[in-house]
């Protein structure tokens, strides 16, 4: 295992005005699983782009040795020829092509320009077996869940006779089950001698599978840890440059009366109208309480929140909603907002932000009525509010007139939260509030959530990260197949207990 397959020496990469990488060194041993950890913007992805030839030789300084020989990749094609394959965070599959077509895209099994479909299908079948997929090669990508799509990407990678597999945030969009499957697969590959590099924020996974961990901070290698040195605390310390003994801020909950109550809530799928997605849900939040909904992907958590939020999801919705004992009708989003509800979407870029607009205009979007008179916007009050939130939430930006697309994930999330705080809600549903955000920014978001609860609002957190739910919530509901299968108080909640409820066991 001690043979070095890859060595990157003194890699420096500059962009106009910033040194993204500063003398980074990385050694990967043959057949190991090596994790790269660091906050967002630390330089992990840049380093991998240097390695795979996205930034061609000459645009960076330093040496790359692969199998002990110096390599100078001018594009990704050259690195792939050597067996270095990178799977990006945003999957690069084409939705309306089949699995087989996707796997052999750009590498068609063809003779004289005519595709040999039989060979393509046979080869695809073998690859799918290796990654544990039972779908047929003709299945369209769009019919697969994210977890399975990820596996198709990996199948595509091994079709290229991969020797070094790089995965950028492979489990960010996966639920716990799919994540576990994927990690299992990586361990299987390890047995077959394939070396993997994983970039991940999920430290529990990193510690579970890694043989080595290299920590990068501010474009520099901080340290490489081996087997027994690898602990979450140690990695976090390296990432943030200080001890972070507590990942969740302290809080003394002051919980009041029930502010929001849902009784016998049912909903059906918007397209397959006979499929019940939410089934007889009874749910409540008290003033100043942080409630969690834990569940695997597809359990119906997002669907529940969105169906409440002005019927943004589902059909044939039935049930009662009470706020402070008064029954509400929430048929449209604007009604829901007017009654003091807020829903922060799990899909920040897709459902939350106007990326081409300024911070100001994003923050005001759900409160346009309040910021206007007779239909005319009060732009000065608008930028004043934005400025207030910029300071309150510590949004890192030179100006509130910056475009949101230029901000980091953590700051974008703060903009979304600001937007909903400006609408002055009493009940907030936060769907995956820290997805894709680095450790430091997570802590800040947690503090903001605490502050909201301290103001007497009712907060509901939906999260796929169990430790987050356990660390943040006063009371946790478990959800499984559209039903609430358990309700646990903070003091009784453990990962094991929750997992049992979440899997319907």
């Amino acid at each position: 295992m001690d043979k070095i397959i890859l060595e990157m020496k003194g890699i420096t990469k500059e962009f106009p005005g910033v040194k993204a990488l500063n003398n980074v060194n990385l050694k990967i041993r043959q057949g190991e699983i090596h994790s790269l950890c660091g906050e967002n913007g630390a330089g992990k992805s840049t380093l991998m782009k240097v390695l795979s030839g996205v930034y061609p030789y000459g645009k960076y300084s330093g040496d790359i040795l692969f199998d002990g020989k110096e390599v100078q990749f001018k594009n990704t094609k050259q690195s792939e020829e050597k067996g270095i394959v990178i799977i990006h965070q945003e999957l690069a599959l084409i939705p309306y092509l089949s699995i087989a077509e996707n796997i052999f895209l750009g590498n068609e099994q063809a003779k004289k320009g005519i595709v040999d479909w039989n060979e393509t299908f046979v080869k695809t079948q073998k690859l799918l077996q290796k990654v544990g997929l039972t779908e047929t090669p003709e299945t369209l990508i769009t019919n697969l869940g994210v977890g399975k799509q990820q596996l198709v990407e990996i199948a595509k990678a091994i079709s290229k006779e991969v020797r070094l597999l790089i995965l950028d945030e492979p489990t960010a969009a996966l639920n716990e089950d799919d994540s576990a499957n994927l990690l299992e697969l990586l361990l299987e590959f390890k047995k077959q001698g394939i070396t993997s590099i994983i970039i991940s924020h999920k430290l529990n996974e990193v510690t579970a599978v890694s043989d080595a961990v290299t920590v990068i901070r501010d474009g520099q290698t901080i340290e490489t840890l081996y087997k027994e040195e690898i602990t979450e605390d140690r990695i976090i310390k390296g990432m943030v440059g200080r001890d972070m003994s507590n990942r969740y801020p302290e809080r003394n909950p002051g919980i009041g009366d029930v502010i929001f109550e849902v009784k016998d809530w049912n909903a059906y799928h918007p397209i397959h109208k006979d499929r019940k997605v939410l089934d007889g849900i009874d749910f409540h939040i008290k003033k100043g309480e942080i409630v969690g909904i834990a569940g695997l992907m597809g359990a119906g958590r997002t669907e529940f929140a969105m169906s409440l939020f002005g019927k943004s999801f589902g059909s044939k919705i039935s049930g009662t909603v009470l706020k402070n004992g008064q029954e509400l009708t929430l048929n449209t989003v604007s009604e829901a907002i007017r009654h003091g509800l807020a829903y922060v979407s799990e899909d920040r870029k897709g459902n939350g932000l106007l990326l081409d607009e300024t911070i100001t205009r994003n923050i005001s979007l759900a409160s346009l009525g309040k910021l206007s008179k007779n239909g005319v916007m009060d732009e000065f009050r608008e930028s004043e509010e934005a400025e207030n939130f910029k300071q309150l939430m510590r949004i890192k930006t030179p100006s509130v007139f910056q475009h949101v697309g230029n901000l980091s994930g953590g700051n974008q999330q703060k903009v979304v939260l600001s937007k909903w705080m400006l609408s002055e809600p009493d009940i907030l549903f936060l769907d995956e509030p820290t997805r894709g955000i680095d450790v430091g920014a997570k802590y800040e978001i947690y503090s903001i959530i605490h502050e909201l609860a301290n103001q007497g609002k009712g907060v509901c957190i939906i999260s796929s990260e169990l430790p987050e739910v356990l660390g943040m919530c006063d009371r946790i509901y478990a959800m499984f197949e559209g039903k609430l299968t358990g309700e646990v108080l903070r003091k009784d909640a453990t990962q094991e207990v929750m997992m049992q409820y979440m899997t319907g066991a």
Partner: protein
Amino acid sequence: MEANAKKIQKSQGPQSGGLGWVKQYSMIFFLIIIGAVFQFSTNGIFLRPLNVTNIILQNSHILILAIGMLMVIVLGHIDLSVGSVAAFTGAVAALLMINNNVPTVLAIVLCLLIGALVGAWQGYWIAYVKVPAFIVTLAGMLVFRGLTIVLLGGRTIASFPDTFRLLSSGFVADIGSGSGLNVTALVMGGVVSALLGFLMVSGYAKKKSYGISVPPAGVLGLKVTLMAIIVMSFSYILAMHAGIPNVLLILGALIAFYHFATTRMKVGRYLYAIGGNEKAAALSGIKTKAVTFWTFVNMGVLAALSGLIFTARLNASTAAAGDLFELDAIAACFIGGASASGGVGKVMGAIIGGLIMAIINNGMSLLGIGVDWQQAIKGLVLLAAVAFDVMNKKKAA
């Protein structure tokens, strides 16, 4: 509030959104350059009072369409039917006024209502049934062209009442002696420059009072002076001919209203938000379907108005009227900086884009360049303008 005022200082004003205005100013610059080139190459014919008046009379119907089209494009849609709808309302106007002697004002109101109905019909399919606008309006283009021919029975119906023709050939009455310079035009020029000057100064003062950093007062003075010079010389040129065309009054009011609505009103935010990210807009409480629907109703009304003005100018309703209007209007929007994927574009940009096309048309005609070459050159201008925009964005990214 004072503490905030200081903090905002680092920021620029809310109006200056980076590349947006660079692009807009560069297009104004381009407009002035081609104007100067034509003025020079036509030995001064280009800026003669008669020619300037003609440019307005010949192009206002396209500019009106461009205003409506801009909002449709900002929403992320397109409307291919406006030329046919304009012809259709022209035919309805002819039937009402010429064949049935309906009073002018009533006929105009009915035609605008029909435009609204047409817009509602198309808006319904686009907003609520979610049929792509390209398809719905392509269908509309065929349907309303066909209906125009049905209504006209294949003939040309001509000679509208004089009251109707005032819409496009009339001028605002002169309050002066009627000889020499048109006093109304000069007075209105003065009023408009005073009004714009006041808005510029008060906006500047308001920004300053909120502590938003502003350029030195000298720059403001220069801007106001330049604006006044342009407005006054424009009205002077018009005054030397017949004064202010009625249609310029209509156009000016529409530009002012829609500019204000899109930049300063809530409804403007709705448009840009939906065009930028429809899902995010919906989840922020914006009624995306209703906004889309009403934007098409609005487009229908403007298309009807454009048709009426064009018909009044021709003094006849023909089956071929309004041919390719939609493409001129769409081109004006894109030259003026609108994005084909929605969310980006300004009313003033579309107007400038439309003026660039108008000036190129007019200048080339003055130079005796044939329609064939005009077409080809306009195509290249469209491509160049959008390519410039795309490259600009790439540089910024």
